[in-house]
């Protein structure tokens, strides 16, 4: 029973982080119709910058109990590289998808080496700082409070995103543009500004994901290409372009992975890819996506 709860908690934690990354992907795909292969690099950027920022702040005298706030701040700040990358991506909006994909692949390569330049090739961690919040005794097991805080933050972000998309004017404009870009531009929406805003938001969600996860794991260059495949699994299962899909997909992938790691280590990613293939065959549009062409 303890093992089961451990798996579920672990799965939910992983899902909380994955949701942010996948959510960013969905926003960008939904509005700009671009699949961003470099999302893993943003995730890694968030992780590395999170470490630097936290270490720096603590050196400056900040109390370790500010960890969550510092992490959230770091994730948001580094997300501001978004507009720069969008400026580059802007050059291929009119092109075929293949070329857009390739450009994001190239951006991934460039960002990886930039990270290597700044932070080096060895993985980095924040040590035990996250334990400053202590542990919770939960059913028959313990859960680090930090992880609970991350899950909570992710839920809050999801709610905020949902509110933004459904209740604000900006959100309405975003949804309209995702539905029919030409129409929304004909109605006076500034396409350029929407692109910048959405891409930056998507980037920030990715960097936040990486920042939030780093106190409990490590920042490494491998993250960059590895997390892409997981995020892509979430997006396929949930349905391209759907935020709800990102949520449900993240839960499915997160829980599946936690279960697989515990039960059959060999199966870990294999199971996920099999499910991706199954979903693509049975319902290519995923759980919540629009019908495939």
């Amino acid at each position, binding site marked *: 029973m303890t093992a089961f709860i451990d798996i579920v908690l672990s799965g939910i934690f992983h899902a909380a982080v994955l949701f942010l990354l996948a959510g960013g992907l969905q926003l960008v795909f939904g509005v700009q119709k671009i699949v961003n292969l470099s999302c893993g690099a943003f995730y890694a950027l968030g992780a590395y910058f999170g470490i630097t920022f936290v270490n720096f702040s603590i050196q400056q005298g900040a109390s370790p109990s500010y960890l969550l706030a510092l992490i959230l701040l770091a994730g948001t700040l580094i997300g501001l590289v978004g507009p720069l990358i969008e400026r580059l991506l802007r050059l291929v909006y009119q092109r075929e998808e293949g070329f857009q994909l390739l450009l994001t692949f190239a951006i991934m390569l460039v960002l990886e080496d930039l990270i290597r330049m700044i932070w080096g090739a060895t993985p980095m961690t924040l040590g035990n700082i996250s334990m400053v919040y202590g542990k919770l005794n939960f059913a028959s097991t313990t859960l680090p409070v930090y992880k609970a805080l991350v899950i909570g933050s992710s839920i809050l972000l999801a709610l905020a995103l949902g509110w933004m998309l459904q209740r604000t004017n900006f959100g309405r404009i975003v949804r309209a543009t995702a539905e029919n870009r030409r129409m929304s531009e004909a109605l006076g929406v500034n396409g350029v500004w929407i692109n910048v805003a959405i891409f930056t938001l998507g980037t920030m969600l990715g960097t936040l994901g990486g920042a939030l996860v780093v106190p409990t794991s490590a920042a490494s260059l491998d993250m960059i290409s590895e997390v892409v495949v997981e995020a892509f699994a979430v997006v396929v299962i949930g349905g391209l372009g759907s935020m709800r899909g990102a949520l449900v997909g993240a839960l499915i992938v997160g829980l599946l992975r936690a279960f697989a790691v515990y039960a059959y280590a060999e199966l*870990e990613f294999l199971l996920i890819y099999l499910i991706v293939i199954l979903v693509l065959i049975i319902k*290519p549009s995923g759980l919540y996506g629009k019908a495939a062409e």
Partner: protein
Amino acid sequence: MTLKFKLIIVFCLALLCSTPWILSPYYMTLLLPAVAYSIILLGFNLLFGYTGLLSFGHAMYVALGAYTVAILTSRVGIKSMELNILGAALVCFLISIPIGLLCVRYVRIFFGMLTLAFGMLFHSILFKFYDLTGGDSGIKVIRPNLFGVDLSQMDKTNFLIGPFFYYSIGLMVILAFVMWRIVHSPLGLHLQSIRDNPRKAEYLGVKVHRFRLIAFVISAVYGGIGGALLVVPVGLADPELAYWTQSGNIVFMTIFGGFNNFFGPIIGAFAFIGLKDQIVSQTQYWRLVLGLVLILLVVFLPGGIMGLFKTKKTAARSQEIS
């Protein structure tokens, strides 16, 4: 094909064949993967440039070919290179059929995603099933016999620069010739019609799904044969061959050489490997440089290297409008 063209090809081949006397052994060992990738990319471009399908999981077939050779030489004891190549081709042929049947029903991003998923599934299998695949250590490849001749006692460098080099070139020439016939044939024309307008192609009686499958399988077979060649110099088949970023590199190389041209892939293979080698020797941040190259390519020169020559030809074609 004009005479001038044929002469250029003969010249390039002659040049290539004379490289053992011109280049240092170091550069010679770069030419080997270039020849192998030429074959791989020729196959890939049948699917991409001629049929319009962008696969992000092509590395899987390269790995399949490589592992087939590894298993045949070191575990089953089949040392004939010809049988190994046949084996690699056959394995890729068989496996690509069901995967292709599934994937060609989808287009564009969904095709890319499905192929990527299959590629990573294969990578997982390679990684995890240690007993079968050697896990992340891979499987050794034992030097095969060329045309029945046992060359295992030969010095490694001499073997690679000598007999194996010419063997590879010979194979590349044969496979390039076959591919040339394919793309200029009625089948090739139907593939191109599918690329340009699948719906119209259907109304002209073109069996779109079936022909996409044919292109898929042929490209997989070429990938496997290239993988077989690729892995002999290295002596090891390892799972990273199937990682999705390798598939990304395959696309990169093809675009680099020019996907709109028959010879683009070959040029791309040689140019990319040469360029990467130069960059790696200058800086540890070669990904950055290559990434920038790819960005420049995609934004300013999507036709690749051969695209530089094509602009003249296209201008001539459009000159006829008055």
